[in-house]
């Protein structure tokens, strides 16, 4: 044993540690833009060309709004377009139609230095804690990597100190800086990924399934870390996940996606307690529940079949092929995303929205 065990409390981020604000002050935003939401996406569509001239419609007129300091949950099954939406938010894909506004400005119109400055404000945490870190780099190089592009952000002399601060902020030790990713466990790697996302002092962090590759006991640690960081730094999250219980725990608002469209959106409690779109209701009833008290088992809506291919989506409402309430009009007209009378923030895209919690199958 050459490394003496230092007296160090078990990592519990956010407790009894001086609050350190990120070294980077958020860019001064124009006062006029203060009214506008932090991030706004309107009518964004994106298709990809795949073999044989076919078009895969990954996104089809998606609307999204994110306020400062809030968490927006994005729920949907594989192939629903949530990852493509994340890539659009990070400017990794350019949408075919629609607009993206960040405090009122279009990031896709930015060039050169302005674009680089914008990049600092939206960062990403990836799903796979193994693939998203380069195994050839040490932890310190991984965290400091963004500063190689943004040279003026942190002076070279202070980088070591700043890396140590970031490591401690995410619940790792400053002495971990010299380690390689493969020497960390899955949860620790995800903390490293979060530290790298924080290195540029972003306003928005897009979390793409950040805990789905982690074990349950570690998952809770990482979720707690994300919650603590939000309280300390005031960042906003776009939290993408297929796990409804996780989304319910972290999100202020939820948007449910199905085959490239948002089918329902609203405050978390309203969407979870009173789903209005049949798909949302089915999704929620399909998720297994951890309740062993006798008689707690609910009636389950078992959907027919599987999600249709995005290469050949159904006409009208995308969900109609699996919907038990579908009628002729559903095949002809795509339903608009409309709020209900009693809950103005809670909107669903359905011709025949559910009025009360369903119990029938």
């Amino acid at each position: 044993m050459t490394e003496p065990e230092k007296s160090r409390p078990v990592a519990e981020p956010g407790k009894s540690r001086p609050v350190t604000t990120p070294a980077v002050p958020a860019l001064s935003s124009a006062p006029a833009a203060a009214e506008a939401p932090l991030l706004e996406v309107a009518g964004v569509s994106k298709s990809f060309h795949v073999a044989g001239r076919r078009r895969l419609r990954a996104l089809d007129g998606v609307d999204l709004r994110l306020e400062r300091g809030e968490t927006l949950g994005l729920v949907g099954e594989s192939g629903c377009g949530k990852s493509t939406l994340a890539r659009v938010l990070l400017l990794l894909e350019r949408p075919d139609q629609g607009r993206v506004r960040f405090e009122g400005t279009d990031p896709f119109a930015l060039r050169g230095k302005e674009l680089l400055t914008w990049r600092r404000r939206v960062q990403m945490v990836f799903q796979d804690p193994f693939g998203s870190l380069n195994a050839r780099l040490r932890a310190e190089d991984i965290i400091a990597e963004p500063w190689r592009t943004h040279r003026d952000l942190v002076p070279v002399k202070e980088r070591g100190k700043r890396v140590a601060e970031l490591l401690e902020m995410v619940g790792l030790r400053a002495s971990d800086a010299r380690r390689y990713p493969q020497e960390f466990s899955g949860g620790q790697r995800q903390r490293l990924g979060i530290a790298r996302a924080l290195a540029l002092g972003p306003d928005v962090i897009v979390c793409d399934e950040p805990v789905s590759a982690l074990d349950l006991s570690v998952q809770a640690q990482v979720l707690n870390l994300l919650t603590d960081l939000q309280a300390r730094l005031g960042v906003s999250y776009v939290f993408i996940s297929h796990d409804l219980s996780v989304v319910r725990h972290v999100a202020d608002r939820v948007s449910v996606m199905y085959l490239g469209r948002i089918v329902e959106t609203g405050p978390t409690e309203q969407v979870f307690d009173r789903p209005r779109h049949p798909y949302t209701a089915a999704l929620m009833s399909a998720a297994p529940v951890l309740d062993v008290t006798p008689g707690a088992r609910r009636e389950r809506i078992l959907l027919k079949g599987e999600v249709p291919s995005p290469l050949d989506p159904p006409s009208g409402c995308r969900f109609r092929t699996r919907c038990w309430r579908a009628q002729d009009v559903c095949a002809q007209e795509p339903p608009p995303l409309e709020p209900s009378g009693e809950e103005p923030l809670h909107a669903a895209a359905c011709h025949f929205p559910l009025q009360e919690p369903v119990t029938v199958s």
Partner: protein
Amino acid sequence: MTLVETPAAIAARRTSWWRLLLRDKFACVAVVILLLVAVSAVVGPVLLGDLAVKQNLRAVNRPPFSLDDGWAFALGSDSLGRSVLARLVVASRTTLSVAIPAVLISLVVGSIWGMWAGYHRGRRESVSMRIADVILSFPSLLLAVVVLYVFSPSALNIILVLAIARIPIYLRAARAESAELQSRLFVDAARTFGAKSWAIIARHVAPTVLPTLFTVATLDFCFVMLTESSLSFLGIGIQPPDMSWGLMVAQGRQVLQSAWWIAVFPGLAIVVTTVSATVLASWARLAMDPGQRWRLTLPRSRRKEVKP
């Protein structure tokens, strides 16, 4: 927090490069041989330059492994009574000064081009690959013959012809790996910082691709030396009185039945040098990868079977 780390990994982290090298006997021997070749290429011609061209007609075609005519004839003599040993040492300079630049040029051009093509995909990739196909579909020896027949067979021209003929090898290997890497998440992460494509290639693509290409290059070393010998055999390679291992093989081939040593020793020199370079390259490939380095602390026979 506990760490997922095997004791072997900890040991590997604390071991210096030098210790790692000493642990691997094969790599050590390879280093010694390569140093020997390098020293003879640098100081050989100065020390033995005269001996290599001195003819001794009383001692033609002397067989090797006898010290009757002095140490200079330990590896025998050729049909003009020149010392094979001295010629071998002197020829190493010409051989290396053709082979090394030729391999380096094709390695540098091919790998940069390949990484660029693979990283960007799309049209840049397909055009590059078609160019590579064109070069490859042309027999490289024929290309060399035509070019060297038209232009003078100088060392520089030989280097250039050999280099161009071998670029596609690196281009293809680099493109394939780079195309795979550019879809990885850590490259996506770098894009979200706004890093420029060349910065990403230098930081994430090159360190992974280059070790493989180095291994390819060492194998190619052998090919280049042999091609050079074929050119010499056709009379458009290295011109006498300059000498190279390839030229010596070519010259000795005519008397292979009566005096085998004249061709075999330079041939052996080519093979031994190449094998040493390959062994060292594969060692370096492991040593440069932090995730694989611990394998070097294991006995050779166990390196492949175990999972990290």
